[in-house]
């Protein structure tokens, strides 16, 4: 048993070395010394408290959008709509943030986050419902849903809820009682990170230990059998889809309350799709999602530093991420074949 684990670790260390080697080649081609480049990335993501906190902060939307894919995927349904759900969730939080006040900051934040989750949930509702009622392909509905949500939010922040003083399409700032305060000077890090981490662990717990989680797992693994065992598979699928939407919406809410403090155009540089990649790389495992989100966040924050000190173009971060996804996918398969079926 022990030697098996050791073997697995050795194999993965070997794989990681291969990925690093390929990265090194790409960096070398773009005219930089790979070792110093890795140094810049490491320094820029973990080098001091500020960088480190920045990396953790980056993880918030990535972890949650990955979880938004993972939950439905356990029940055997695809949610490619994280992007749209995130945008609507962000808008929901902003809407609450500049229009009402419940008197206490705690209540305000709690309420805004609930609303953001609800907005995301609503945007997952119709693809989920069409899936279980008519078996409409959820890949298409959620994918198209992203475009629709994105244009809809653009309409809202361009016209009815526009901040008229800004040349950008964005809402007014949310009231300060809604803003989740930064925890350290000189960093945007706030307890949103712990909320996100908490949500991931709650779902880890639900999936592993709850009856409900058991039913989700069984439905995803074999819906026909689950039905035979008295599980209401359609309900399970729909609910898991809604949970996915709510989590993605929450990601948007946390970004608005904890970082941007308003809803704006180009709010998301494709968090939904990054989340999808992270989830697939993590094989739907919440613990791995945290781990891989950390690596993605490291790459993103580190690349700012890399750009600063070297002549490597910023696109390199995209290239490195893509290479990592390709190789990890391949390695996973290879190690599975080696280790049994």
């Amino acid at each position, binding site marked *: 048993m022990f030697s098996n684990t050791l073997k697995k670790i050795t194999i993965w260390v070997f794989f990681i070395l291969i990925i690093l080697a390929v990265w090194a080649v790409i960096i070398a081609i*773009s005219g930089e010394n790979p070792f110093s480049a890795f140094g810049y990335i490491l320094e820029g993501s973990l080098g001091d408290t500020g960088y480190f906190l920045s990396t953790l902060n980056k993880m918030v939307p990535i972890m949650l959008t990955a979880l938004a894919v993972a939950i439905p995927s356990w029940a055997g349904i*695809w949610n*490619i709509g994280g992007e749209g759900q995130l945008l609507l969730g962000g808008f929901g939080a902003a809407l609450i943030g500049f229009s009402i006040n419940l008197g206490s900051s705690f209540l305000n934040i709690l309420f805004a986050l609930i609303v953001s989750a609800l907005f995301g949930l609503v945007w997952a509702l119709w693809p989920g419902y*069409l899936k279980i009622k*008519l*078996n*409409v*392909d959820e*890949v*298409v*509905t959620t*994918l*198209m*849903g992203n*475009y*629709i949500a994105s*244009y*809809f939010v*653009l*309409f809202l922040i*361009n*016209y009815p809820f526009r901040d008229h003083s800004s040349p950008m399409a964005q809402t007014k700032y949310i009231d300060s009682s809604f803003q989740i305060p930064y925890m350290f000077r000189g960093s945007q890090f706030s307890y949103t990170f712990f909320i996100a981490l908490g949500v991931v662990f709650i779902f880890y717990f639900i999936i592993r230990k709850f009856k409900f989680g058991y039913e989700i797992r069984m439905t995803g693994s074999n819906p026909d059998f689950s039905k035979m065992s008295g599980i209401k598979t359609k309900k399970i699928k729909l609910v898991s889809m809604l949970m996915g939407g709510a989590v993605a919406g929450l990601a948007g809410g946390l970004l608005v309350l904890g970082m941007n403090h308003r809803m704006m155009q180009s709010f998301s540089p494709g968090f939904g*799709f990054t989340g*999808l*990649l992270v989830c*697939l*790389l993590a094989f739907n495992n919440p613990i791995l999602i945290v781990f891989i989100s950390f690596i993605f966040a490291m790459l993103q924050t580190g690349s700012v530093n890399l750009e600063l000190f070297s002549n490597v*173009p910023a*696109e*390199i*971060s*995209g*290239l490195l*991420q*893509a*290479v990592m*996804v*390709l190789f990890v*996918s*391949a390695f*996973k*398969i*290879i190690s599975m074949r080696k280790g049994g079926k």
Partner: protein
Amino acid sequence: MFDEITTLYTTTIRMATPILLASLGGALTYYAGIVNVAMEGLMLISAFFSVVFSFMTGNAFLGILGGMAASVIFSLIYTFFVSGLKANNFAIGFALNILVSSLTIFLTRVMFVGQNVFNSPKIVAIPSLDIHTGIYFIDNYILNFSVLTYVAIFLVFLFSFIIYKTTYGLHLRVCGEKPKALVAGGIKVGYVQLIASILCGCLCGLAGSQLSLYNVRMFSRDMTGGRGFVALAVILIARGKPKYMILISFLFGFFDSLSLKLQNQAIPPQFALMLPYVMSVVVMLVFYLKDKKKLETV
């Protein structure tokens, strides 16, 4: 009024052509059992290399070939991972899309310093079909489009022929439905998928060339603008049936075109622009409701 119909009509055809070409390509791998999420990347890499080759050789045809070659290479990578290694198609598809997006900007910047748009008068475009019959209507409404538009329409028929009438088509249909039967018949699944993958690369390559050498004559970053995903939606809605794919592609082009027409003060542009996507969902619903009725009457 007549002018407006002309605008709607010609824009529809120009907007539909790349989507139709890409969806034909993706449908081949769809039949072979691979849902192609990488079409966006395939189109983009082809759009880039089409421009580069056309610029360097001064020949549009060589430009197309260059774009197709690049697209085929990436299509093969995709198939290798998804079919050969059985990796998740979404992971590989999105990874390749990111890779291509970064790579093309990276290359544009290296090759044409400090730019992520590349245009030049030296880029030779794909010609329109230049036949004059002397009849105004025919010359302007039927014979006035990109050569590739006619190729695309021809390819729809060729596609139906291949799928339903030829050996390869038979193998392809079996490949997606019951690969084991193919193996039992002494045919290699990998081989059938390889051919499908190469052809898919060619067709997505054509789609990319059409975009960067006809629709416009330039490369600009992420210029495919989600058309690869639209093509994927077309395939999934039509379930690979050629007659539906041509219909839905043109419907998509039409709503794209209509969304420009409808823009005025009464409708905010966002609502007009979301129209094609809303309509694709509606069309899909219609298809599913039709299916459901069919199931009920059987």
